């Protein structure tokens, strides 16, 4: 069964039709990269998946459960919406860490707030908190930041901040982790450390959707690549296929443009 199925997603801003029928599905453990020129709708696709943006129509199904279907008359309570949202993790281009919290607190904040809503919170408070923190330490060591748990975001480099953001997203144990150009806001010498973390997640079969302009990275890390153009999927297949025999003229022009900076 597909972990994620997206059917015919449409989204317009006013008269500007940004998504014109996006459909794809992915399996658990798959790494899917979305590439395409600026304005083709990559960010909008991710934002519709993560419910930051409300698509006009389309169906999103996660692990067999329909989470979004506005035309089908699907109405969700706020609770259900939040639950569905947590199926997806999101790593932003601009990190969006919480500046007033330490690295550890950034990773644990949401879990702690969720824990307070649990019925057994009062009784097992100490244990619940220590479990949350233990998991956070564990995640932070996976992204190579064990030394920085007490630092504030402003004391970290961009690459370190983005790795915290990855740990923070992982802490919610999302079924699918989404990245929107995770290295675009970084100095070139800092992109490597972030890409390495994402590669290691790929090796551990974390299900991921990665929007990126790093072509060689997309090629290496992805099981599958979507090439987007003008709000549609214009190429879909393994990296070998999309970059090779499946490459349309548009795709070739796009890759040429990216390669030439």
């Amino acid at each position, binding site marked *: 069964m597909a972990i994620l199925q997206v059917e015919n997603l449409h989204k317009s801003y006013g008269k500007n039709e940004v998504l014109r029928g996006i459909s794809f599905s992915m399996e658990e453990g798959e790494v899917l990269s979305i590439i395409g020129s600026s304005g083709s709708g990559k960010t909008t696709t991710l934002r519709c998946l993560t419910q*930051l943006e409300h698509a006009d129509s389309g169906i999103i199904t996660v692990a067999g459960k329909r989470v979004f279907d506005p035309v089908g008359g699907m109405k969700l309570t706020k609770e259900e919406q939040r639950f569905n949202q*947590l199926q997806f*993790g999101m790593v932003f281009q*601009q990190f969006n*860490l919480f*500046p007033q919290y330490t690295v550890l607190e950034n990773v644990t904040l*949401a879990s702690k707030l969720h824990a307070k809503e649990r019925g057994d919170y009062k009784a097992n408070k100490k244990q619940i908190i220590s479990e949350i923190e233990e998991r956070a330490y564990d995640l932070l060591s996976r992204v190579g930041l064990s030394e920085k748990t007490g630092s504030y975001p402003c004391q970290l480099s961009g690459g370190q901040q983005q790795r915290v953001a990855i740990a923070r997203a992982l802490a919610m144990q999302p079924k699918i982790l989404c990245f929107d150009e995770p290295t675009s806001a970084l100095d070139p010498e800092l992109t490597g450390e972030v890409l390495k973390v994402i590669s290691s997640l790929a090796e551990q079969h974390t299900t991921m959707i990665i929007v990126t302009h790093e072509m060689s990275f997309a090629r290496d890390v992805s099981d599958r690549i979507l090439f987007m153009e003008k709000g549609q999927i214009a190429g879909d297949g393994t990296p070998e296929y999309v970059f090779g025999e499946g490459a349309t003229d548009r795709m070739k022009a796009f890759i040429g443009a990216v390669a030439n900076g």
Partner: protein
Amino acid sequence: MFWSVTLDLLKGFGMTLELFALTLLFALPLGLIICFGTMNRLGFTVRGKRICPISSLCKVFVWIIRGTPLMLQLIVIYYGPGLIGIGLLPRLTAVLIAFAINYACYFSEIYRGGIESIPQGQYEAGQVLGMTKSQTFFHVVLLQVIKRIVPPMGNEIITLVKDTSLARVIAVYEIIWTAQSYAKMHGLIWPMFYTGAFYLIFSALLTFLFGRLEKKLSYFKA
């Protein structure tokens, strides 16, 4: 003589402080209400243009209050009700109403600036982590807003200390009024100069407190 003047001025300054404290007590929350009013998106769309009556109303109100002198507002609130036959408000009440409304409008703009300066990404990060809107506001956004508004609020609040002296135009016996009565009745002008020391000491205290607060919040950048 010096001591009796000092004691008298202290009494006057007591009234100054009372005006100051009560104005803050009312203006701080009222400012928040006006701020939410101006940011309210409730309304309708006409030919692609969004019209938000609550917001527009609040903005016009803020414009009027910020665009006219506090002195004038004070006089309108004190003498206005008499003109339409309601009768005068007690002096202190009139002063407090005028001050609270005036400062609330200035505060509301500071609050609004602070809230609007928080990047959308902070709200979105909270949302994708499954936090509710109020959790995001109280646990993520609020402290960042406070950090940003502390310096302008400090300025505004120190201005308020000095603005309290306007109350004397409707004969509220604050410190300047007390000093003035020395000039009128005893021909003494130095008590008036002396009042400066009271203001200076108090605003130095406030400056110090706001400096401490700013420093306390300087551990993070936002």
